[in-house]
């Protein structure tokens, strides 16, 4: 993909309104990408503060800081904020910034839709968290207190926080679907001449599968929460056995979306990983086709394994066996990815700048998520792991080490391209080491807590769990505070720092590195030719 005939782009004047109007009205993919990333960073800290309050309460047995009702609100909203308002927007921000640059397109295919897609996010996040504020003024009883999974009938019983969350999920879903349509249309129609689908950068491939998964599964979630809304207010009985409904139906619908959602969050990260590994190993990507086919296989498998999220709800033996084996089958394409990542590093000439450190950290820790996921698929053992802290630890290895650390890999990797400055390398490395150590300090004890029998989502616990919880809380606070280094480093990099070259990294390959750093406001006015 590096064999490119670059044409001198004629840069017309970079005219746009100033101040707030620029950001409100922009249709430029770079501006919108920047807004997505900024929004994501802010929400990452808001979600983080929520869970630090939770960890503070769990520092010792007994209730110290909050009532159980409030505790339940914090855990659910933490999850929704982190998934829908931090991780997904970060991935969309990457897509907005990088896909046009990487495929040689002047912008996204549907720029106005793009603008709308972003500006739906802040109101949705506002709606999600508004009930906290309303409760302070004595209106309602706070935010969604059912956990992020909305399980009926608990959510039918809940206060108006549930309605706010349903509305927020609808808006976030609309935003994501519009973003997905835009990405699919852009990739299918606006690739530079000569860039066949099998020359498409892997990052774009990962996002393409994510986009299809979003379009396939978000409407199911929207349907499920709408049924919940009518059960709550309009007398339907979808999830009420007394009226002929079934509470477990909700779980089926929710996880039909919920399981692919995991891959929705991770596929963009798996897509960017080979670029980073190849850059810092100074060696081409290993197994490009194998990775593409694995993405497709994982996408397909992800929509047929959902019931492994509620094995304990009770289902027929053949169903248990089917969902167990289909879930285990995901380990095969995933193993292909791990193989390709390591083979990309093999016999390279590696150097370990911050993005590479995060990439390696990602591979190892995400490996733990994958391996514990494999044993969680086993129905017999799952009866013990399920609903326990073992699961909490497992999915944080997937979504923090896999998701968030993957996003950080991308941010450090592309920051020089976006800002035209190099970030502070020492600070970046410090951030990496603090993150990795404190992350493990937080979550390794949670594996043991789960094995010892501590259920998740409890505000207070028996004395046998005290030590591990204390360690976990200490780890969580270090982890949270370390992220301030990240924010500081990003701000520092935006405002100044050493000038970045067009090809910011020695081994970087791909169209995006042919453009100046930062790229001009309008790039690829004339599409490059790929030979």
């Amino acid at each position, binding site marked *: 993909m590096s064999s490119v005939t670059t044409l001198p782009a004629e840069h017309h004047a970079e005219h746009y309104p100033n101040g707030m109007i620029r950001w409100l009205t922009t249709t430029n993919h770079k501006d919108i990408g920047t807004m997505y990333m900024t929004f994501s960073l802010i929400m990452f800290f808001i979600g983080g503060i929520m869970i630090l309050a939770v960890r503070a309460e769990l520092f010792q*047995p*007994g*209730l110290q800081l909050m*009532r159980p009702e409030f505790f*339940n609100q914090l855990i659910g909203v933490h999850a929704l904020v982190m998934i829908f308002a931090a991780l997904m927007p970060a991935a969309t921000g990457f897509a907005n910034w990088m896909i046009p640059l990487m495929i040689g397109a002047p912008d996204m295919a549907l720029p106005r839709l793009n603008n709308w897609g972003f500006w739906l996010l802040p109101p949705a996040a506002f709606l999600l968290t508004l009930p906290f504020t309303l409760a302070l003024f004595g209106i309602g*009883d706070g935010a969604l207190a059912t956990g992020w999974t909305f*399980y009926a009938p*608990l959510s039918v*019983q809940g*206060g108006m926080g549930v309605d706010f969350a349903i509305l927020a999920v609808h808006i976030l879903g609309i935003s994501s679907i519009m973003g997905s349509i835009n990405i699919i249309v852009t990739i299918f129609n606006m690739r530079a001449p000569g860039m066949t689908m099998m020359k498409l950068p892997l990052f774009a491939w990962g996002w393409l599968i994510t986009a299809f998964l979003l379009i396939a599964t978000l409407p199911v979630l929207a349907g499920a929460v709408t049924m919940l809304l009518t059960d709550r207010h309009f007398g339907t009985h979808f999830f*009420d*056995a*007394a009226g002929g409904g079934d*509470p*477990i139906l909700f779980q089926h619908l929710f996880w039909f979306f919920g399981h692919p959602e995991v891959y929705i969050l991770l596929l963009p990260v798996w897509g960017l990983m080979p670029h980073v590994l190849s850059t810092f*190993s100074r*060696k*081409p*990507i*290993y197994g*490009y086709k194998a990775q593409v086919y694995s993405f497709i296989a994982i996408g397909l498998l992800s929509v047929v394994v959902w019931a492994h999220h*509620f094995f*304990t*709800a009770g289902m027929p*033996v053949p169903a*248990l*066996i089917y969902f*167990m*084996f289909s879930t*285990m089958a995901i380990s*095969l394409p995933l*193993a292909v990815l791990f*193989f390709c990542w*390591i083979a990309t*590093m093999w*016999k*390279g*000439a*590696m*150097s370990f700048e911050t993005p590479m450190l995060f990439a*390696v950290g990602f*591979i190892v820790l995400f490996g733990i998520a994958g391996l514990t996921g*494999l*044993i969680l698929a086993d129905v*017999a*053992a799952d*009866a*013990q792991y399920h*609903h326990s802290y073992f699961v909490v630890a497992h999915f944080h290895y997937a979504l923090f080490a896999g998701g968030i650390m993957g996003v950080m890999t991308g941010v450090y990797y592309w920051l020089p391209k976006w800002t035209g400055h190099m970030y502070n390398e020492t600070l970046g490395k410090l951030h990496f080491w603090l993150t990795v150590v404190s992350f493990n300090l937080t979550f390794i004890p949670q594996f*043991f807590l789960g*094995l*010892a*029998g501590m*259920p998740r*989502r409890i505000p*207070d616990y*028996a*004395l*046998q769990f005290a*030590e591990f919880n204390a360690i976990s809380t200490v780890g969580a606070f270090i982890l949270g505070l370390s992220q301030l280094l990240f924010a500081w480093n990003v701000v520092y990099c935006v405002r100044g720092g050493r000038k970045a070259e067009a090809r910011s990294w020695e081994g970087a390959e791909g169209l995006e590195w042919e453009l100046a750093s930062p790229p001009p406001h309008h790039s690829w006015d004339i599409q490059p030719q790929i030979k």
Partner: protein
Amino acid sequence: MTSAAPEACTKKNLAGKPCVRSNKTRFALLSFILPGIADAAYNFNFPEPVTPIARETLHIHNEFMLIITILFVVVFAIMIYSMIKHRKSVGHRPANFTGPRSALQWLWVLIPFAILLFIDFILMGIPAVKAIVNMEDTKTRADMVLKVTGMQWKWQYEYPEAGIKFISTLATPRDQITNAEAKGEHYLLEVDNPVVLPVGKKVRILLTSTDVIHTWWVPQFGVKRDAVPGFLRETWVNIDKPGIYRGQCAELCGKDHGFMPVVVHAVPEPEYLAWLDQKKAEAKAAAGGADRTWSSDELLAAGKEVYEKQCVACHQASGQGLPPAFPALAGSKIVNTPLLDMNGKIVKDSHVDRVMNGKPGTAMQAFRNTLSDIELASVITYERNSFGNRRGDMIQPAQIKALR
């Protein structure tokens, strides 16, 4: 309980008594490196299993842990080797291969996947299928049935063959939870009425719920199953060792999800039968009491007791509730409705109606099937004459009986 079996190591042993711990040797190395941790009697694995399923689960878990640890070490040893050898700073020149080229390389690439296929579907898969079939076989040669009903936030246990049922609630005092007094040894894992089961008998457990989904979990039984409102779920246990086994609700079920423990006393069969007889006698005595006329003082005293067990979590000791989710009883419009209509029937949305039939879609459940006539009559009478409510009337257990 007279059972003298050593308490299994499910908690930090505060009294410093020796306790039996499985997998001790497994962590001997770790304990050697980290003596502080070993002293604190941390649990690094499942608690001691006491049913065939729990033993099988522990065995499977240990085996899987070993497999994934080997996978982890092997894969990342290769990666770390590469990270040390193939560095720019040691002058390694990058290769430029992008995939397997020769037949030998293809072989190298395919072998790991063949191994993974074997691990997934043979090594792990076959024992897993066997375990599932065993776990789901609830009916074959079951000796007795225990029906478990989850409700916010307590468990009801019913022995259908013996015709007895009772409610089991958290026994830890509120003051321990709010840190006003020192926490007891079994903090949050103690109940007023533990469920009693005989050892060596296959007990088929049926589960359901009256309100939201709960999950009945005793780690040492290796059993975890959801209690779904409107449906019956089932599982089974065959406890092979007398003792006291503790667990918790595992599915988020509202505000007191963390405060609905499960405590099972497993005893030899004669002891179990004696307990059963005693429970039957108690139930008979209670039923007899429903027919006589109770004085208001008796009802108030009994009602206070019921209120403090069944109602206090939501409506609070002061009767002020936690509005808006849990309304106040003090000065409540509903509490201050007339007891019954002129024909002695329930008025819709009256106090008696609400207590007996609940309010669908809220945490207020129907107590008609969970409380006895005496309990219902006394708690209704108590609520009408407490927290500043001065109705001055009372309802007799016999009246409740007639309403059923």
